[in-house]
């Protein structure tokens, strides 16, 4: 990975909290009580994946996705999400670190509501294993 890419921001991408997709996610994730318990807290991984291909495929970043595993993930909400709302996904590379040939990439994605306020902040840490390591 190219450490000079640290701090790089990507263009905003819209993401709709589609009620049907939320229902499907509840069913797959095993969330009970349907709509009464709100949008599943990890549902917005779908928002991340609308931007992820851009980051993973960024030649400037130089990520070898065949060697990448997911290290940690967190979502912090300022408010509950509303089904049907449109969010803007604002992604940036927060940090790139390297230790002994293993790379650690942290990506932050802010989900911005129609009011311009951040509704949720997602932070993903990906580990690019050293070449030749299993």
């Amino acid at each position: 990975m190219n450490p000079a890419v640290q701090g790089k921001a990507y263009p905003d991408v819209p993401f709709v909290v589609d009620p049907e997709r939320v229902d499907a996610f509840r069913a797959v994730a095993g969330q009970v009580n349907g709509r009464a318990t709100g949008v599943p807290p990890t549902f917005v991984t779908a928002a991340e994946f609308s931007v992820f291909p851009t980051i993973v495929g960024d030649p400037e970043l130089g990520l070898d996705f065949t060697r990448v595993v997911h290290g940690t993930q967190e979502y912090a909400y300022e408010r509950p999400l509303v089904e049907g709302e449109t969010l803007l996904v604002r992604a940036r590379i927060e940090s790139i670190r390297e230790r002994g040939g293993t790379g650690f990439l942290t990506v932050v994605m802010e989900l911005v509501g129609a009011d311009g306020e951040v509704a949720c902040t997602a932070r993903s840490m990906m580990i690019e294993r050293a070449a030749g390591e299993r």
Partner: protein
Amino acid sequence: MSDRLAVDTVAVGDELPELRRVMTREDVRAYAEVSGDSNPLHLDDDAARAAGFDGVIAHGMFTMAHMASCVVAWAGEAGWVERVAAQFRAPVPMGAEIVAGGRVRSVDLETGLVTVEAWVSMLAEGDGVDEVGWPVKKGEVVLRLT
């Protein structure tokens, strides 16, 4: 029938009911579709082996969703999740049973914030109650009880 969870009845050390499921290819395919993560690691045995695994593995995020479901099932309609975090460790092969659990670590009566330490452990096929791995360690869920 359990009472609605309330901030004045939740206590530090309370254990959440466990949530279990056996991972199947169908589940993982369904998760790939709904999440948008179609990394071949989760869908194609050959691709998974090329990456050093014995066969397809479940998405780490799928185990995190399972962990969140465990906490949401316990909280019910009493609150909403302000924060959920997880560290991914053991890969989950098909046929493994994953068990999500949690324990209340702190309760703030004024703000209604409840912090739960959460995790997902894994039992291998036919292995009885021996735990063989931790798909999720150092999981944390912060609930705001309303």
